[in-house]
């Protein structure tokens, strides 16, 4: 079974530039998550999708971050404009069901904002 795919693996940008991350979840997983993991901290949930609808985006900085999951499969997370404090690893995860269930994580995208 193929795992969660993410690209790119690494990205370096200047502050105020924009960046986009892509995620393809495990086939058949209806729930998709985007997390931000700052060095030395645990993952922080940014947004959760159930199929192509948003379940929760209460921790997403909506003035600069956006995410979409067209057709209920793959997803894109965008940051525009980026700030220095956005430097982190962005993790995508998927699960078969919504709620307190096992999540499968991708390898993440390491973003450095200079």
């Amino acid at each position: 079974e193929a795992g969660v795919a993410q690209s790119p693996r690494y990205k370096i940008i200047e502050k105020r530039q924009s960046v986009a991350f892509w995620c393809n979840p495990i086939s058949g997983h209806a729930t998709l998550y985007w997390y931000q993991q700052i060095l030395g901290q645990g993952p922080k949930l940014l947004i959760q999708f159930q199929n192509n609808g948003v379940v929760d985006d209460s921790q997403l900085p909506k003035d600069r971050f956006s995410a979409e999951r067209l057709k209920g499969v793959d997803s894109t997370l965008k940051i525009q404009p980026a700030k220095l404090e956005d430097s982190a690893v962005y993790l995508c995860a998927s699960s078969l069901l919504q709620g307190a269930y096992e999540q499968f994580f991708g390898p993440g995208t390491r973003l450095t904002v200079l």
Partner: protein
Amino acid sequence: EDQVTQSPEALRLQEGESSSLNCSYTVSGLRGLFWYRQDPGKGPEFLFTLYSAGEEKEKERLKATLTKKESFLHITAPKPEDSATYLCAVYKGGSYIPTFGRGTSLIVHP
């Protein structure tokens, strides 16, 4: 305020030296507590889910237990390949948002 605190932040063990990692939580109505393992440069990998106090789960050298206030991850006779960061995450009642702890970085020396 909901909190998940993991201790210690870092732990160094000799191969074969058993120990425990702690995850204490203050959430209302725990729906589930998860343990994940994260290797450098990789995403977290699921280990266990615990749903109610008194529950225990085992996998190879790892055993997870749960009380009403905390969970322990016991590592018996660890090997160098057990070196990783161990994360716990909790779901409180009525929420779909998991709260992760900062993790415990474990290094097992041969």
